[in-house]
């Protein structure tokens, strides 16, 4: 079942810049999807369409089988279904205390106080930040801020979580903690859409990949099918994952054949083990 779908949407900024040109995109319920593209390709602009922050110049966005209704109550409904975690946590954490920040969404939804409290507690637990309720967000580390930002969205209990560059700027440990958290949420049934330009990480989580360049989707499929078309990937200012690049060089330059390129360390290990033993 397609839980969210963008049908042929274009978006033109007031100054005339065409940011999106006929995007078709969808996510099945429970999928984990990567939207891969260089800076300025239109990833963030597309995301802002998913919960009606931006309204497409043409085309439509369908959530849970219903086209987005841009009335006040319609927008309120869609924003409870689709939560967006923005790239820079400093743009979304405002309150003097972590708990107040997490409570922001549920309070705006008009939930009763004990329900708000329960959600704050549970979301902070889920992202591993229980015990930080009274801390001021700007004293947290980058990775911690990111997790609080995710908790803020979790507290609204959306069906779809959209994350803009969730690991950018994080050190290796912070990045892998976020990735683990997203896997857990996905296992629990949440549909997750991630924008990124980190090609090395993409194959680690994505069920399906869209490649976006200059406001157009130029490729779509499983990580293997997307990365097998190297020309398209490089044309979008991206590259192969390092592991795949190593194998590509061995195959092309040194004529050692592996077939399909492995994309992750695990896959490469299996392929190499077969050949080396």
């Amino acid at each position: 079942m397609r839980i969210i779908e963008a049908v042929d949407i274009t978006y033109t900024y007031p100054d005339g810049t065409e940011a999106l040109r006929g995007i078709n995109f969808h996510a099945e319920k429970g999928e984990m999807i990567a939207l891969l593209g260089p800076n300025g390709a239109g990833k963030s602009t597309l995301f802002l369409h998913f919960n009606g922050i931006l309204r497409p110049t043409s085309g439509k966005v369908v959530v849970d089988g219903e086209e987005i209704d841009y009335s006040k109550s319609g927008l309120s409904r869609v924003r409870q279904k689709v939560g967006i975690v923005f790239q820079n946590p400093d743009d979304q954490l405002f309150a003097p205390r972590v708990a107040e920040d997490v409570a922001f969404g549920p309070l705006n939804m008009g939930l009763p106080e004990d329900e708000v409290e329960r959600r704050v507690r549970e979301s902070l637990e889920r992202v591993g930040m229980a015990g930080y309720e009274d801390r001021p967000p700007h004293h947290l580390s980058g990775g911690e801020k990111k997790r609080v930002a995710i908790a803020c969205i979790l507290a609204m209990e959306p069906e779809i979580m959209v994350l803009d560059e969730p690991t950018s700027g994080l050190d290796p440990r912070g990045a892998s903690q976020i990735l683990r958290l997203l896997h857990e949420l996905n296992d629990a049934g949440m549909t997750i859409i991630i924008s990124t330009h980190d090609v090395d990480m993409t194959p680690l989580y994505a069920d399906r990949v869209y490649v976006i360049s200059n406001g157009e989707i130029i490729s779509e499929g499983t990580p293997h099918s997307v990365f097998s078309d190297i020309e398209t990937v490089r044309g979008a200012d991206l590259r192969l994952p390092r592991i795949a690049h190593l194998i590509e060089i061995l195959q092309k330059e040194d004529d050692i054949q592996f077939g399909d390129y492995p994309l992750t360390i695990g896959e490469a290990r299996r392929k190499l083990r077969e050949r080396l033993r």
Partner: protein
Amino acid sequence: MNVSVDYYAHTNGLRNTSPAFKMALALITMIISLASPTPLIPFTVAVLMTLIILLLADIPPAYYLKFAAVPAGFGLLTLILMALFFGVNPVWSLMGIKVYSDGLNTGLLVFSRIMGGFTCLAFLALTTPLNEIFQELERLRVPRAFTEIALLMYRSVFIFLEEASVMYHAQDTRLGYSGIRNSYRSLGLLAGNLFIRSWLRGEALYRSMESRCYQENLPSMGKQTSTSPGELALLLLFDGLLVLGVILTSRLTIF
């Protein structure tokens, strides 16, 4: 948040005309339009400036119309208010509402001056980047402390606008603007956060300027431009004719 003015200021058809010339043209014409005791010349200014903006500066008409709609609407509203409430000689009476001829005349004059003045302002705004305006002021001996702050401010404005818009979206995503109560709280949080950010940016900016040997004063950095004799002649001709027009039409009344 309309910064497309700045975008056009940097890309329009008159981008490379000397800023001093554009400023002089806008300001002198603006003053002539304001000094005219009758509406004809201000309306002429509005038409001429609009033509310059559309034909010479290549500003898209659709954009310009939207830009001009607000002052035009406000000007019309002024005209109506003046005609109804600011006069002593009633001419017409419609269903008990009196229209005053002198009020109508004042209203028409103010409306014409608003349009004349606005089109001059729009010409300046759409053809000349703000920083060049302040750099010209600096050459006119406006105190450096004043222009330096304005020039340092210019960049920060765009950074903060961008940040404010992302913050606004982030709050909107969490339903921060549903209902007036929520809106106030959200906007207050946003502004407070932005304020803190602005101070952090101030510190970071100072640090990076210090790293490049900044000592108390910004060196003068503007592009040196000069007004050509041709531009000067054009300016004198254009505004001279308008002044003549003001003198010739000064006794005209419409109502």
